[in-house]
C-alpha cells in the first residue's frame, strides 16, 4: 500500500508488517515502568479493600476473637496506600529527573499546537476524520489531560485517606499534618464521602485506559503496550512525530 507515511494514524491503512525499516525509541525509563506496575497493584488492592471497608459485603461468624477480617482488609488497604504514595514520590522526583516524555512539561498540553491536536485526538476517537489524528511518541494531549487529572484525583485520595487514617492517633504526625482537611470540607464525614465517591473515578478510568492501550497497540502495531514493560516501542524510520 503506497501513499504518504507521515505521522498519521489511519483506520483505513493497514500498517505494513514489520520490516527492517523500523527503529526502536526508548520512552519510559525503568523507574516509570516499575512505578506504573506497582501503582497498578496498589490501586487494584485499594479499590477492592476500599469497597469492603466502605460497605462490608461479607461477614464472619462465631467468636470475634477467632477472626480478624476487617483488620486484615484495613491492613492491606493501608499497605497498598503506602505503596501508592511511594510510587507518587518517585514519580514526583522523576518529573524533574526524567526524559522529555516524563518531565513536568509532559503533563500538560501547553502549546497552541497541543490544543489543536487535542481536538483532533477527540475526533480520532469519535471516528470523525480519524486519518487526521496527530501522532505522538509520548503522551498525546488527551492522554496528558486524563493522566494528569488522575494524578490530581490520586492526590485527593491520598490526602483524604490520611485525614481519615490519622484520626486513630490524634496528636500523631499524620493527624497533625492532615487535620485541616476535615474543617475545609465541613467535617470528617464529608472527607469520608469524597474518599468513597472518588473510588469510582479509578473504576471508570481503568477499563478505558486498558481498552485504549489495546486499541492503539492493535491499530498502530508499534508495540505501545510493550513500551510500559520494555520501555520503548518500534516505529517506522520514516514516521515523523509531533513531539520528537
Amino acid at each position, binding site marked *: 500500500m503506497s501513499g504518504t507515511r507521515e505521522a498519521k494514524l489511519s483506520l483505513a491503512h493497514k500498517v505494513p508488517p514489520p520490516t527492517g525499516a523500523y527503529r526502536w525509541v526508548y520512552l519510559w525509563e525503568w523507574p516509570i515502568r516499575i512505578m506504573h506496575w506497582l501503582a497498578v497493584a496498589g490501586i487494584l488492592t485499594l479499590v477492592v479493600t476500599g469497597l469492603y471497608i466502605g460497605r462490608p459485603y461479607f461477614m464472619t461468624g462465631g467468636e470475634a476473637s477467632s477472626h480478624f477480617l476487617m483488620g486484615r482488609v484495613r491492613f492491606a488497604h493501608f499497605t497498598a496506600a503506602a505503596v501508592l504514595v511511594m510510587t507518587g514520590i518517585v514519580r514526583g522526583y522523576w518529573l524533574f529527573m526524567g526524559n522529555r516524555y516524563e518531565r513536568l512539561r509532559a503533563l500538560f498540553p501547553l502549546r497552541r499546537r497541543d490544543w489543536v491536536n487535542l481536538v483532533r485526538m477527540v475526533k480520532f476517537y469519535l*471516528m470523525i476524520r480519524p486519518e487526521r489524528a496527530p501522532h505522538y511518541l509520548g503522551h498525546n494531549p488527551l492522554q496528558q489531560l486524563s493522566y494528569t487529572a488522575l494524578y490530581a484525583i490520586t492526590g485527593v485520595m491520598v490526602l483524604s485517606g490520611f485525614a481519615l487514617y490519622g484520626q486513630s492517633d490524634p496528636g500523631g504526625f499524620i493527624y497533625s499534618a492532615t487535620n485541616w482537611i476535615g474543617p475545609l470540607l465541613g467535617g470528617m464525614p464529608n472527607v469520608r464521602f469524597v474518599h468513597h465517591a472518588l473510588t469510582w473515578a479509578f473504576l471508570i478510568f481503568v477499563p478505558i485506559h486498558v481498552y485504549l492501550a489495546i486499541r492503539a497497540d492493535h491499530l498502530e502495531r508499534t508495540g505501545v503496550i510493550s513500551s510500559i514493560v520494555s520501555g520503548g516501542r518500534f516505529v517506522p524510520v520514516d514516521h515523523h512525530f509531533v513531539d520528537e
Partner: protein
Amino acid sequence: MSLPSLEAWAAEETLGQRLQSKGVSRREFLEFCGKLGIVLGLGSAAGPRLAQALQALKRPSVIWIQLQECTGCVESVLRSAEPTIGNLLLEMVSLDYSHTLMAAAGHHAEAALQQAMKANQGKYILVVTGSVPLADGGIYTTIGGRTAKAVLEEAAEGAAAIVAVGACAHWGSVQAARPNPTGAVGVAEVIKDKPVINVTGCPPIGDVVTATLAHFLTFGALPATDSDGRPLFAYGKRIHDQCPRRAHFDAGQYVEVFDDENARKGWCLYHVGCKGPATFSPCPIFQWNGGTSWPIGAGHPCIGCTERNFWDTMTPFYDRLPDVGGFGVERTVDILGAALAIGAAAGVTAHAVATGIHQVRERRKLPVLPPDAGKE
C-alpha cells in the same frame, strides 16, 4: 446528697469548712478527688494534690447562663441517683445564677445575675449553654428584653474563664443546621478576646463538665484542648478506638438491620450508620447516668454529637455516608459510580466494535490496486 446549692457562702468560709458543715466526710472528699484525678487523666495519685487545692478554695463563683437551648445540658449535669462527681462538685461551687435551678424568677433573677457579676468581677467562671442567634439583630432569643448576644457579652466581660457547655454553645447545634434560620453560632464566635473551652456534646456528659470546672478551680487554668477547643482529657480519643464492640468491627461482624440476630449478639454497629469512627468523645469510658449505659452499649449507633456540624454531616444517622446536598446522595453516589463504571466498560466494548466496522468500511473505500501494488 442534695442538689447543687444556691445558698450563699459565708464570706471567709473555705470549701473544706463548708463541706464539713454539710456533712461530707473527709474520706468521701478524698475519694472524690481521687476519681477526679483519674477523669482528668492525671492518675489517682494526683488526688491529694487536688484535695489540698480544692479545700482551700474560697467561694468559687459560677454563673451559668442559658441562651438558645433546651436545658438538656443542665439536666445532664444534674442527672444522678447517687452522689457522683457531678453533684459533689456543684455542691462545692457557689452557683450564683442559673435560671433553671434558682428559685428566683423574672426581675429578681436578673438582679441576682447583675449582683453576682459585680461581686465577683474578674473571678467567676462563666458557664454558657445554648447558641447565640445573630440573624435579624438577635431577636430570636431574648432574656429580660435583651438579646442573647448582649447577655453573653456582658457576662463574658468579667469572667475569669468561659466554659461553653453543649453542642449549641460549641457551634450552634440543631438550630445552626442548614439552613440555620436564626443565624445561630457558638460562644467562641461571639467572644473572641477570651479563651473559650468547649465541653461539647448533645448533651455532654455531666462528669466532663464538672471535671473541667474542677480543673480550673484546682490549677487556675483550663485544661489542654484540641484544635476545636475541646478538653483533651475527655475528647482526646475516638469512640471507635475505645469501643467494646471494636473486636466485632475488626473481625468483620456487623449488625445489618436493627433487631437481627447479629444485633442480639452485640456485634458492631458500623453497618447501621455508627459514627464512632469519626467522633471524639469519652462516652465508652465515662458512660451516662452514673455509668448505667451509653448509646452504643444500648445497641444504638453513635450519631457523632460531639463533632461540629453533626446534624448536617453525620446524617442520615443510620447510614455510613453523609447526605451531601440533602437528596440521598450517599446512596446515589454508589449507584451513579457503578453505572458510570459499567457504562465505561460497555462504552469501550461498543467503541471497539465501532472501530472494527469503521476500519472495514474505510478499507473498502480504498481504490482497488493491482495485486503487486503494495510490494515495493
